[in-house]
């Protein structure tokens, strides 16, 4: 796989506090990369820098060999999905997905067709006339994803997109997300603080702690060779604890 996005020595401070400390990594073409870290470690800040909503203090971002560090957010060929979706509440599902297209010189008829295709891809064709407030959390989530995908970004950033959903919806959304990625060949960078989610979804996981990268590798390698104490405690021990409590329950049931 070739390198799609290269981040070199990106730093960001708010006043005295350094939020990102010279972060460097890359994302491969078509990869599913998770960014895993505790609350406040700088994940959202990093995503906002990647899409261009924030300027880094130092460092460079390259996409397909082009320097995009200072490019406008909509000129990067990237999309972003926020945790709270930020849907346009006064617009229907169709209008939500279609609205941005008219600012990109896409003819009306094409825009409508693109939007309908995208809505079909996320499985909402029966709901195109509904308003966001009449949709379930998972459905709103899908509208946000369709709205982002409609512009054909080759990289999609997702900031804790599942954290507002219930467990069952989360599990089914995982599958759908992977399906969409396969269908469109999009590179996905997925921010989460849920260890299990990161391990279930990712080609590679990047583990962050207080603005620094601890380790970036495949789930298997991280399991086998945790880079430092933080990875061991925050990631592996936590996962182990989950497995332990579950297996106790399952064994208990068998025993009983």
């Amino acid at each position, binding site marked *: 796989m070739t390198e799609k996005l290269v981040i070199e020595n990106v730093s960001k401070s708010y006043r005295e506090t350094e939020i990102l400390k010279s972060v460097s990594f890359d994302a491969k073409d078509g990869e599913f990369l998770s960014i895993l870290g505790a609350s406040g470690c700088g994940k959202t800040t990093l995503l906002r820098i990647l899409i*261009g909503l924030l300027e880094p203090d130092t460092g460079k971002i390259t996409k397909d060999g082009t320097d995009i560090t200072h490019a406008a*957010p*909509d000129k990067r060929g990237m999309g972003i999905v*926020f945790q709270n979706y*930020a849907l346009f509440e006064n617009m229907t599902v169709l209008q939500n997905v279609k609205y*941005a297209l008219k*600012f990109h010189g896409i003819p009306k008829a094409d825009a409508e067709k693109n939007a309908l295709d995208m809505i079909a891809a996320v499985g909402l064709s029966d709901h195109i006339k509904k308003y966001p407030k009449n949709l379930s959390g998972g459905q709103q989530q899908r509208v946000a994803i369709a*709205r*982002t995908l409609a*512009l054909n970004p080759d990289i999609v950033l997702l900031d804790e997109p599942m954290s507002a959903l219930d467990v069952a919806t989360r599990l089914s959304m995982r599958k759908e997300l992977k399906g969409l990625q396969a269908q469109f060949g999009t590179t996905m960078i997925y921010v989460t603080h849920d260890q299990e989610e990161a391990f279930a979804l990712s080609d590679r996981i990047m583990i962050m702690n207080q603005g620094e990268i601890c380790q970036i590798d495949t789930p298997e390698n991280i399991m086998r060779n945790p880079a430092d104490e933080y990875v061991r405690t925050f990631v592996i021990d936590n996962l182990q604890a989950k497995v332990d409590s579950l297996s106790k329950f399952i064994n208990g049931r068998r025993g009983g």
Partner: protein
Amino acid sequence: MRRKNISKLIISICIALFFIVCVISPIVSMLCRITPDGFMSVVGSPQFLPAVINSVSTALIATVISLLLAISSAWCIRRTDIKLKALFSTIFVVPMLIPSISHAFGLVALFGSNGLITNLLSLDGNIYGFWGIVVGSVLYSFPVAFLMFSSILEYEDGMTYKAAEVLGIPALSRFTGITLPYLKKTIISAFFAVFTMIVTDYGVPLMIGGKTTTLSVLMYNKAVGMIDYDSGSVIGAFLLVPAVAAFIVDLLNPENSQSSFVSEKVEPKKSRMQKILSYVFCTLICVCVFAPIASFCIMVFETKYPVDPVPTLYHIQKTLSRGADKYLLNSMIYSAVTALLGTLLAFICSYITSRLNDKFSKGLHLISITSMAIPGIVLGLSYVIFFHGSPIYGTILIVILVNSIHFFASPYLMMYNTLGKVNPNLEAVGQSLGIHRLFIIKDVVIPKVRGALVEMFTYFFVNSMMTISAVSFLAPPAPKPVALMINQFEAQLLMESAAFVSIIIFVVNVLIKGVSNLIKRKLAASR
């Protein structure tokens, strides 16, 4: 990104300049007029100390009464099981639709030397003076306090009371231990807000004060009557003190626990006795609210109240022939333009302060709410001093400007809070999708806050219709606002005309309020 920064810079500079010219400079130039000699001559004059004492004592007593009435009536609405709650709460805020001077005039019409009730009960008609000011002030300040307590009581968490009841804590202790501490902040803010409102108002004391002169009337007499701006400025500075104090209290005391999560509303009491008492109390308040308006109607539609009760349209024709219709039209134009301009300005400012996080927006927020601390009468004088000789002086424009500033803070805060609740990532989503911020504002943000926009427009309009404080300094002689005629007619002993003008203002405001509520309901339903 560079172009965006430049347009943002230009907008910021324009807004900063606007506030410097329209708020800061006038106040500073008024304060600059104060010289040690001028100060001493005002403070040393024989009227000054009595005026301070009258102002503070009437305002204190009226504030306490107003707050007690407001808490009791809010209690009846929120904590008892009475019916007609919506009707009662609507009627309670009706006094907000007529000018303060009309409330005092209503008292004169009822209890004055030739008043309706004076004649009915053959009293001596001695309402003028200290107690007249107190009662008049209570009448028009009550709804403001009522609204504050009614909303805070609505959002109190009922679980606390359930828990206390289960623990066997007696009712009185529940009141002193839970309710009072919960209301403490609101009591403090309401106290300062109402006190400031009363102490800086001059409509009531001017109309009904008689020989009891308050600071605000003294300032009015000096600045408008004797064109002595130096003395006016000194008194204006004194009137700024309670307003600034109220402002600081509000700043230090901002969030009420209102925003916290309410798991369950407090269940209204089912006691029969309480219900009866509440009905009696609420009905009494309604009577007090409608008495002045009823007395205006009696005066206007009777040939010679109280001696000749034959119905007539004579007084209306007479008032119209004195130009009331033209003045009314003026006022409606002023008010509509003020409402448009004010709403636009307040929306832009609140958008910047609530949705762009930078240093400029913090400063802008502070200056936006500062206008709350400037009493209308002080703003009026400071405009006279600062804008004297400028091309807008003596035109409609300065009236519109002064009203937009005078009533800026409340609509601004309303929109600031509304926009603060709109999803913070909308603009970011727009940016990532290549939708310009202006389109996000037009197509997404504004549709979401339309109701609040209507409310802001209404607030500006209704208040511009009623205000006399700032405009009495600034109104051009020819197209005068209609509210100023109340005082003028009363001074000419044309009581029926003064009453009719009060009714006109009331009717226009009721209509505007009604239409605004209809639109808001439509908007809410269409979503």
